[in-house]
């Protein structure tokens, strides 16, 4: 999926108290939910339950699944490939969530608080648009662009390095297990950076300028203002960005499919690609379902933690 903003915050405002309504007024609204709920049942609930069910079986996709209890889960815990894929996800969370958030904070503060004032809001919004542009690309197209730039034979990067006399630095960026994951991480930082920048600048707009002026009169430095005031006030945005990008990293598929297919070896393998291989290449549907179920549990747990924290903050 597009690694963007799927989990924004729900309304923080409390519902406006509604005037007394005649009893039974709520009835009837249920009808409006019917199409949406049926659709979700068909496309999401039933398939999810089937995947969970199949995760306890051995199944090639043809004939009847054979019940094997927890065998797939035991296999998963002992499977080095699975552990490698989760280790890689750890690195991708750094590249897709942690680093873009930190860089995005710095850039957003700079654009909002310095560039907009020193060089005008038009310059600031041009910079912002420049950082955001990669975000609108289909991730698969991002992969094509970078696979070409990093190609060992005809790629632009190696040609540039050779051209300026740095040929010892030329590498097989995506084909060498030492550099493949690092290369994918760099690409994902490039892809993700615009999202936090845009979200944080929009958060900073909410901040009352008088707060800054007061802090400035008190002699607070630019750094102190940024870290003490801005970061504190746009906490909700930071939160949303960290959560959505972490979930996006957990689900990453397209860039891996196009750039490396998980290779070389397992150097860039991720759970979703490993599940895909089990479903459609190894026809080991039971095991693929087990991997998907584990991934689902991790994401649901993450969402549950977030909803809880959010609720606590609102109270």
């Amino acid at each position, binding site marked *: 999926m597009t690694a963007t903003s799927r989990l924004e915050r729900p309304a923080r405002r409390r519902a406006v108290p509604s005037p007394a309504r005649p009893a039974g007024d709520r009835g009837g609204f249920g009808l409006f939910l019917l199409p949406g709920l049926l659709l979700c049942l*068909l496309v*999401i609930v039933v398939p999810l339950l089937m*995947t969970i069910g199949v995760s306890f079986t051995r199944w090639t996709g043809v004939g009847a699944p054979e019940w094997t209890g927890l065998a797939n889960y035991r296999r998963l815990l002992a499977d080095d490939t699975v552990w490698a894929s989760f280790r890689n996800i750890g690195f991708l969370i750094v590249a897709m969530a942690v680093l873009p958030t930190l860089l995005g904070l710095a850039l957003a503060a700079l654009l909002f608080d310095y*560039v907009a*004032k020193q060089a005008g809001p038009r310059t600031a919004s041009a910079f912002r648009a420049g950082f955001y*542009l990669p975000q*609108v690309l*289909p991730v*698969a197209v991002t992969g094509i662009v970078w696979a070409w730039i990093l190609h060992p034979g005809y790629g632009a990067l190696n040609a540039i390095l050779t051209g300026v006399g740095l040929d010892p630095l030329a590498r097989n960026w995506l084909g060498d297990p030492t550099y493949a994951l690092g290369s994918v991480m760099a690409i994902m930082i490039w892809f993700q950076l615009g999202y936090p920048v845009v979200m944080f600048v929009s958060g900073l707009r909410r901040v009352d300028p008088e707060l800054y002026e007061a802090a400035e009169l008190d002699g607070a430095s630019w750094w102190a203002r940024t870290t003490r005031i801005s970061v504190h006030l746009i906490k909700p945005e930071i939160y949303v960005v960290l959560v959505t990008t972490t979930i996006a990293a957990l689900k990453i598929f397209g860039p891996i499919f196009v750039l490396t297919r998980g290779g070389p070896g397992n150097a860039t393998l991720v759970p979703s690609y490993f599940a895909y291989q089990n479903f459609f290449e190894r026809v080991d549907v039971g095991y693929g379902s087990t991997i998907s179920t584990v991934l689902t549990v991790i994401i649901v747990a993450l969402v549950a933690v977030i909803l809880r924290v959010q609720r606590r903050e609102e109270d």
Partner: protein
Amino acid sequence: MARRRGGRPTRAVVLGALTVAVLLMLAPFALVALNAVKSPADYAARGPMALPQRLHLAGIVDFWFRVDFGEKLVNSFVVSASVAVLAVLVSILNAYALGVGRVRGRTLLLIFFLLANLLPQEALVYPLYHLAKQVGLYDSRLALIIIFTAIQSAFGTYLLSSVYAVFPRELLEAAALDGAGRWRVLWRVVVPVTRPTVSVLFTFFFIWTWNEFFLPLVFLISNDKQTVPVALGVLQGDRLMDATTTSASALLGVAPAVVFFLIFQRTLTRGALAGALK
């Protein structure tokens, strides 16, 4: 605000560094455009950084006809536009019941829709593939439209419900006094008033669906049904792809995205989704 501390040198350094950073972000786009219009001989002789000796469009034209790119654009457009329209409709109906109607169990339902949107597609893909095969919807754009309508509208419901929850009650009551039923109130009062949010949703649904890769990859096996990202993605590593053909294919993939970006720039870069929630 007055120009403050930080004289000209600081200013020049900061703006200079930012300019370099933005140019680095945009460099891949420039490289793609530069080399997509070069002849293979030109590329071999003078490398990726040189300006093309003359405009060589054969690479792009050849690739366009080789993959029948026009057809892929139509496929992507049909799927994305249908999903955007249908998902907006479903989101509106759901949000009306949850936000305005306050049906029982609305908090749980909202969490349900949020989770429905955030689930990894890997957890749905095999049963969907299996079921679609059984009902004859495998390898069809219709199956994708139904699936993405469900996934996108789950998010839309979550977002729009919070907007509808604070919809001015006076407007609803005034309409009810005029004798308008629920259906009429929805389309004559609620939807027109919240049109900005609805159009933001439409924009994002369209672009998100356009960019989807995983499910279209699994569901669209026939060449003539593939969407742009799938058609380009599966050609990666094809032995017929050389440097200039690859950049031509990348340019064709980038171009529609850049067009959308230019059309929807305000919506996209203002954190419109975040704004819609405040």
